[in-house]
């Protein structure tokens, strides 16, 4: 199982790498200007969060768009990766009315593979100034917190997932389980 992490400059990019490594995945952190061609044999991809404000400096998101267009494997966008995914497919991201930092309570409204086996409410860790303001066509919102309505989304017809919160962070409950579910989905679709 080979799943790489695209580095968009996040504080927790290396944590994503660590969680995948702990799950026994063959993983590596790659720069976000890596050609899509080099990633086409992977089983899955994680688009990390990062300091770039997706709406204001899309240039800093490198080739994330190419990965979303050209790769068919499951892709998990986290924070900036999630916001970029929404904008890329015709939705929108904007400065959050109430930015969230640290502890928040997540409620899952729509069951999905990523949340398999998890309770419908649990504590997650946040760190964002922007948020998804419009869910793109063909995507569905899956979870929210009191201050942010799109904490999770997925494409209805492709294995593309976006999370605003940070499952890779130690303080997020069930974070490892969310990654395990993503890895399992990558495994299922490989066959």
């Amino acid at each position, binding site marked *: 199982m080979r799943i790489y992490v695209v*580095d*968009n*400059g*996040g*504080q*927790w*990019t*290396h*944590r994503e790498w*660590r969680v995948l490594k*702990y799950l026994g995945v063959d993983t590596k952190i790659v720069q*976000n200007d890596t050609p899509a061609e080099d990633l086409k044999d992977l089983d899955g991809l994680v688009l990390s969060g*990062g*300091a*770039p404000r997706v709406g204001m400096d899309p240039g*800093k998101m490198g080739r994330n768009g190419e990965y979303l267009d050209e790769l068919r494997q499951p892709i998990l966008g986290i924070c900036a990766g999630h916001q970029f995914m929404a904008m890329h497919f015709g939705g929108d991201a904007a400065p959050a009315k109430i930015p969230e*930092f*640290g*502890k928040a309570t997540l409620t899952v409204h729509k069951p999905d593979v990523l949340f398999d086996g998890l309770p419908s409410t649990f504590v997650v*860790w946040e*760190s964002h100034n922007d948020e998804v303001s419009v869910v793109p066509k063909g995507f569905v919102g899956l979870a929210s917190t009191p201050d942010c309505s799109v904490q999770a989304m997925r494409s209805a017809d492709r294995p593309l997932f976006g999370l605003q919160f940070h499952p890779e*962070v*130690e*303080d997020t409950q069930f974070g490892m389980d969310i990654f395990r579910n993503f890895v399992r989905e990558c495994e299922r679709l490989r066959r």
Partner: protein
Amino acid sequence: MFDPKAFIDEQVEAIRGAVKGKAILACSGGVDSTTAAVIASRALGDRLLAVYIDTGLMRKGETQDVDVTLKALRVSHRIVDASDEYFEALKGVTDPERKRHIIGNKFIELFEREATTFGAEVLIQGTIAPDWIESGGQLRDRIKSHHNVAGLPAEMKLRLVEPLRDLYKDEVRKVARALGVRVAERQPFPGPAFAVRVLGEVTPERVAVVREACAIVEEELEAAAGKGLMTLPWQYFAVLLPVQSVGVHGDVRVYGHTVGVRAIESVDGMSGTYSKIPHEVLDRISVRITNEIKSVNRVVYDVSNKPPATIEWE
């Protein structure tokens, strides 16, 4: 998961491959650099010299402790007293990033001096993942300049080798335990030491206040944990704030200093929640600090998580 034994073997090999001549190793006596010292010493034997710099900014009894620890681990080492140089370099400096840069540069200046004497071309450091992550670079924003990464000068004569670069503190502790390192469970302590726990100018007097306050926080929390009143937090310390406030000492007005107490739970230092310390324990800490350190008349407790705050204040 993580296999400390395999990691040690890999790194001993990697260091042997990377260092053909002699190397010096920057050792603060903390978990990371002591662990790096034992691994490097296994790889290089007497081609390695661990160097501890006494910056004058360290905890109570630290310099003597480091000597004992390294002797027990049979790592050849040298202790350099540079406290006057550090206080001189930090005179009048209040910006936290400038403090970190001055300290990083000074470290390298001293390590280069030691390397020349020892005949080493390589500097081994116990840098761990949060150090380079938080120091930023390219797309990543700089949260704070860790002295051993962003505090380094642009041009360095020594070649860097960093065996623990991809590890977090919990993993380093596993390696330390596997190596029988006495300080494996010791709480983290910042490289720039008390320079970043004295907010504002760093003077010997202000450092003495925070050193005493930190020692009280450590003693009280360790005693409370020993009695089963609480579990020991991941990290716990005091900071001297640049804030004065009014108090009353023996019917006389005083305008004294404020100490902030910080205790936080974490696994890897990259996120954390503040510790829910019992009030009776906080009360003892407050009474002791304000009575044993005459210039302090107010103690506050920090109830911030990371993020939005960081663990240290600077």
